[in-house]
């Protein structure tokens, strides 16, 4: 049941450009996002997950260049003029960052921050009413008095809720959240994630959630994509994650994470996460993969459908035909 996708990403690549020297950061990424669909992007540092969000919103740092194509609601993002891009940023796509303090002006009140853009088209009173309504929607008590406060007077969790309220003011079609709860305590994380999830579903917004936490991603998205060294290596349904994970890297991530419910021997992935620039002609994961064979050194595996998922691994058919071993415990 797929209609016109909200977002189409085709062969998106990002390079760091320094004079004539180009260093790859993200390689050949393609995916679709349907309206109201939530996609999780999971990976370790240097995997290209945050850069993907920046490339889609066209907010890459100056030294990074994107190629490929991105279409939102049928419009070519790379062809958007400055004013169209501004409109899209302010009302079509909302961004929630990891550190709310870095994204808010510290010398202005919460009220000023929330009503700033609304004031362009609403009266002061209407703008304030809208802001209050949003603050209540994200579970903030005493919304009136919060409007008078400055960012430093709010805890991290409260400030992140203010950022969510702000992101959702214009009812965007798409939310992009980059590690929105990584800096928060675990109980606050649960609260903030629940709010994002609830509002997103209620209002039918699509979401791309970038996180290093596979279980967190699986809990609030429809599909999860695993990135490694600037490449998409596996994508599949979130509720399938623990039962049907196929790529050795995603498997390794699940096996590396110590469980709260049982003490099991950790099976770490050897080595460290690679960068896209370190990848040779073969598979990005070859140096750390327990299943690597010679073809993995020489040829990059394409992303192919397998057992309802998309997987970039030369040995995926073998892996899929093996019974999922003891590690794939489901809830």
């Amino acid at each position: 049941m797929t209609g016109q996708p909200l977002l189409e990403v085709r062969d998106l690549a990002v390079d760091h450009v320094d004079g004539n020297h180009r260093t790859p950061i993200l390689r050949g990424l393609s995916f679709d996002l349907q309206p109201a669909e939530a996609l999780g992007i999971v990976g370790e540092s240097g995997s290209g997950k945050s850069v993907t969000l920046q490339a889609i919103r066209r907010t890459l740092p100056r030294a990074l260049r994107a190629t490929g194509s991105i279409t939102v609601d049928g419009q070519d993002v790379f062809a958007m003029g400055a004013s169209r891009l501004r409109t899209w940023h302010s009302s079509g796509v909302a961004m929630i960052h990891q550190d709310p303090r870095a994204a808010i002006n510290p010398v202005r009140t919460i009220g000023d921050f929330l009503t700033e853009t609304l004031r362009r088209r609403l009266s002061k009173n209407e703008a304030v009413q809208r802001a209050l309504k949003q603050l209540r929607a994200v579970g903030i008590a005493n919304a009136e008095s919060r409007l008078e406060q400055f960012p430093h007077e709010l805890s991290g969790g409260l400030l992140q809720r203010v950022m969510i309220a702000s992101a959702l003011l214009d009812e965007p079609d798409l939310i992009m959240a980059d590690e929105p709860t990584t800096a928060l305590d675990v109980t606050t994380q649960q609260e903030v994630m629940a709010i994002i999830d609830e509002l997103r579903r209620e209002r039918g917004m699509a979401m791309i959630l970038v996180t290093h936490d596979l279980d967190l991603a699986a809990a609030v998205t429809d599909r999860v994509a695993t990135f490694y060294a600037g490449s998409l290596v596996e994508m599949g349904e979130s509720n399938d994650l623990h039962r049907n994970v196929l790529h050795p890297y995603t498997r390794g991530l699940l096996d590396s994470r110590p469980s709260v419910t049982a003490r099991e021997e950790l099976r770490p992935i050897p080595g460290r996460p690679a960068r896209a620039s370190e990848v040779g002609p073969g598979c990005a994961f070859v140096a750390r993969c327990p299943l690597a064979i010679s073809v993995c050194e020489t040829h990059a595996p394409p992303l192919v459908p397998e057992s309802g998922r998309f997987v970039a691994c030369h040995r995926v058919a073998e892996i899929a035909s093996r019974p999922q071993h003891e590690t794939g415990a489901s809830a």
Partner: protein
Amino acid sequence: MSDHAVNVANLRKVFSRGGRGHDVVAVDDVSFSVARGSSLAIVGESGSGKTTCARIIAGLETATSGQLEINGQAQETGRLTHRKRGQRARDVQMVFQDPRASLDPMQTVGAALVEVLGQQTSLSRTERRARALELLDQVGLDERAAESLPRHMSGGQRQRVAIARALAADTDILILDEAVSALDVSVQAQVLRLLQELREIRQLTYVFVSHDLGVVRQISDMCVVMNQGRVVETGPTERVLDSPAEQYTRELISAVPGPGWVPRRRKVSVG
């Protein structure tokens, strides 16, 4: 002679805000002991006082009141003289979340270890050099690492160096303050494995400060759950995580994402 490596009784720490608002009670009547060769986790969220407790044990923070014993010896909890601080460092070493903060960016890893060995041991120059390589080997780094500057290493490698540096003083008590929290999950698992191996081989005692209950389950025998400066619950880690006695502990556990987890709003929104 007590069989406790660390014993803390009625520890209290008040941060005075010098007339700007109320004083903050960061640690409030905290008591626990760590059996020699065991691993105790102090668990809590930000503001729980877990790091302040750890820093008091390491002598990096003063206590307002309370008693501290290390290896059966009563310790001062006030401001330490330079000499006393050096003595404490021979008993207790600390590993921090961000190793960059404790490594000199201009010094090679080998030179840093040789320097610590010079301060903390009576080894000769050549012995120090050999011992530095031995320490690096124990944390899974090779000779090339000795010639590297911290900035040319990955986060996991730097944390291994920080552990090697803590072991250089031949202390048998390590305080690990969120020591694996900033690492990528695949690298975190490697460092956790390393810490487990080192503990067995060298009979180390760990005080492991963490907000991460999965890590706590993996690394500790006993745990102390703290909230807002106070101890909420203490016990064997398995017991506390499998059948928590306190509501706060239950909330912490249920907030951790795992297979089948769904985030739930805890508080009823008011407005």
